[in-house]
């Protein structure tokens, strides 16, 4: 970057007293107690907030992208599938919200990978903190991004005529479930972020996984008209179960079966990919 500032002339003058000052600062070898797992994770989450503050452009993918998705699919398929865009929106909105947020999760892997390449990761790895805390920190920051994306879509939807029967409580519960699931789901990307060599390959793998998982589901259409084998895939696709659960919550029902499916799937994903992530993180 051309913006790099050179040490200015006053720099040398300031350096003279450095030695005395510095030794005073290094006299005390008292160490504060190790931070707790929670406090370390929250601190890493705070870092994610600071990054948003300094690079607000990164919010484009949780604001503009979801708006485009919602507008595009509502007006593209609305007339053909449900008679009118407004009619279709009632069905589509919870699904498109899930789709946008799940698509956004891949940036977790990209940021992990970028940090590794920049070297700041080595600093974190030599710190005596709870080992998973840097990863949890990324995901806490990302959970905020998921919430932003959900709220943006909700507002756009409401403007376009989305009228959820579940009321504020149902919508809130739906968003909460979505954000919680996405938090668990993102561990797939922390693993790939650690495993793959460049952020480009992380993106590539993410797309390969995310496109089928979101499109081959009940997000855009009811699976009834799909061929049997595809319906079989939708049956076991956790994203489809999440969509069903969120859709029902927003419509005012608690669908215990779908909810259980979603929670169990989230727990399994976090357990499997969380432990793989930490294994790679420790062994790297």
């Amino acid at each position, binding site marked *: 970057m051309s913006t790099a500032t050179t040490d200015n002339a006053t720099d040398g003058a300031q350096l003279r007293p450095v030695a005395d000052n*510095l030794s005073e600062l290094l006299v005390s070898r008292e160490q504060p107690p190790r931070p707790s797992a929670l406090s370390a994770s929250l601190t*890493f989450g705070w870092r994610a907030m600071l*990054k948003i503050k300094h*690079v607000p452009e990164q919010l484009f993918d949780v604001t503009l992208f979801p708006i485009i998705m919602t507008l595009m699919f509502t007006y593209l398929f609305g007339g053909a599938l449900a008679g009118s865009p407004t009619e279709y929106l009632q069905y589509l909105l919870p699904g498109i919200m899930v789709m946008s947020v799940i698509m956004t999760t891949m940036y977790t892997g990209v940021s992990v990978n970028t*940090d590794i390449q920049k*070297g*700041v990761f080595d600093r974190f790895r*030599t710190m005596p903190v709870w080992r998973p805390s840097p990863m949890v920190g990324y995901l806490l920051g990302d959970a905020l991004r998921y919430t932003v994306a959900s709220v943006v879509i909700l507002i756009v939807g409401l403007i376009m005529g989305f009228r959820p029967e579940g009321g504020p409580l149902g919508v809130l519960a739906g968003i909460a479930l979505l954000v919680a699931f996405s938090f668990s789901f993102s561990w797939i990307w922390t693993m790939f972020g650690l495993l793959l060599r460049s952020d480009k390959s992380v993106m590539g793998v993410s797309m390969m996984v995310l496109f089928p998982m979101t499109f081959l589901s009940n997000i855009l259409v009811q699976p009834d008209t799909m061929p049997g084998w595809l319906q079989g895939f939708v049956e076991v696709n956790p994203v489809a179960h999440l969509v069903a659960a969120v859709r029902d919550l927003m419509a005012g029902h608690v669908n215990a079966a779908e909810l259980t499916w979603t929670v169990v799937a989230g727990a399994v994903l976090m357990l499997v990919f969380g432990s793989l992530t930490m294994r790679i993180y420790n062994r790297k």
Partner: protein
Amino acid sequence: MTDPHAPAVETNGLVKIYGDNRAVDGVDMTVPKGAVYGVLGPNGAGKTTTVKMLATLLRPDGGTAHVFGHDVRTEAAAVRRRVAMTGQYASLDEDLTGLENLTLLGRLTGYHKRDARARGEQLLTAFGLEEAADRQVKKYSGGMRRRADIAASLLNVPDLLFLDEPTTGLDPRSRNQVWEIIRTIVATGTTVLLTTQYLEEADQLANRIAVIDHGKVIAEGTPGELKSSVGAGAVHVRLRDTGQREEARRLLAASLGADVELDADPVALTARISTTADDRAAAERASAALGELARAGVVVDDFSLGRPSLDEVFLALTGEKPAPDATAGDAGGPDAQDTTKATAGVAAVTEGTRA
């Protein structure tokens, strides 16, 4: 319990393999407490890989390594509590400001937010960075970045500080600043393990040096010991009259018992004193030789007694000039990434020999 007399670092046959490249191939090293220990070698020699294993960033594939008596493999958490590492590449978040970085890392070492910030401010001030505290690190110059990076390693004063090529790519003034900082840190009792490809840097800072090449320690000792292993130095003489050069050469060779080279400059000669004599004897013999020249009527315009540089040590040990870019190619490990810095390394090495 750990032995309070355990050295800062002790490795035995340490090995790291990448594919079929033995990046670190049986390193034995003992770093005493409270001094600067230099690990000197060209790019791709295995310096960074060794340090990364000691800092618990990489798992050794063979051999043992202990830091203050703690096994880096089985007691990694205990090691991490006593060490800090400043890598070759800024180990700070470039998007955040200097102060935010230090506050973040301060909180991770256990300070409350306010204390972390205060400690960060004090350190940045001590490093002459108070005006840059609220600027993003990506806008820092190389020297500022390196200082901020070292400051981040001192939030908790570590017992052992790893500095991986701390001055690579810095201009001479920034390099001197970093040297001064390193001397101050050591004076407060922290052990510093410094890797460098700059021979002058190891000479300036280190109490002991391990010379490493192709993943092995090929020599170890104080800078003085390493130098005396290749001889006491060289006498450089400049004559007024080029016609007297042959005579001067004969006289110097007889007096010093050494080979005398004719330099490219038609009035200059260099005599290498190849014995292991100490400096004083070398100086005495050089002045005696000059006396011989004066008595024979050879007019000497200028002379100097150069101590052997670590360049010459390296040459003597490996039989090849330390050429960073020549060796970088055979490294498959992280050291291979050094290649981009190689040109800067060559420049500094050249500068080092002249000093």
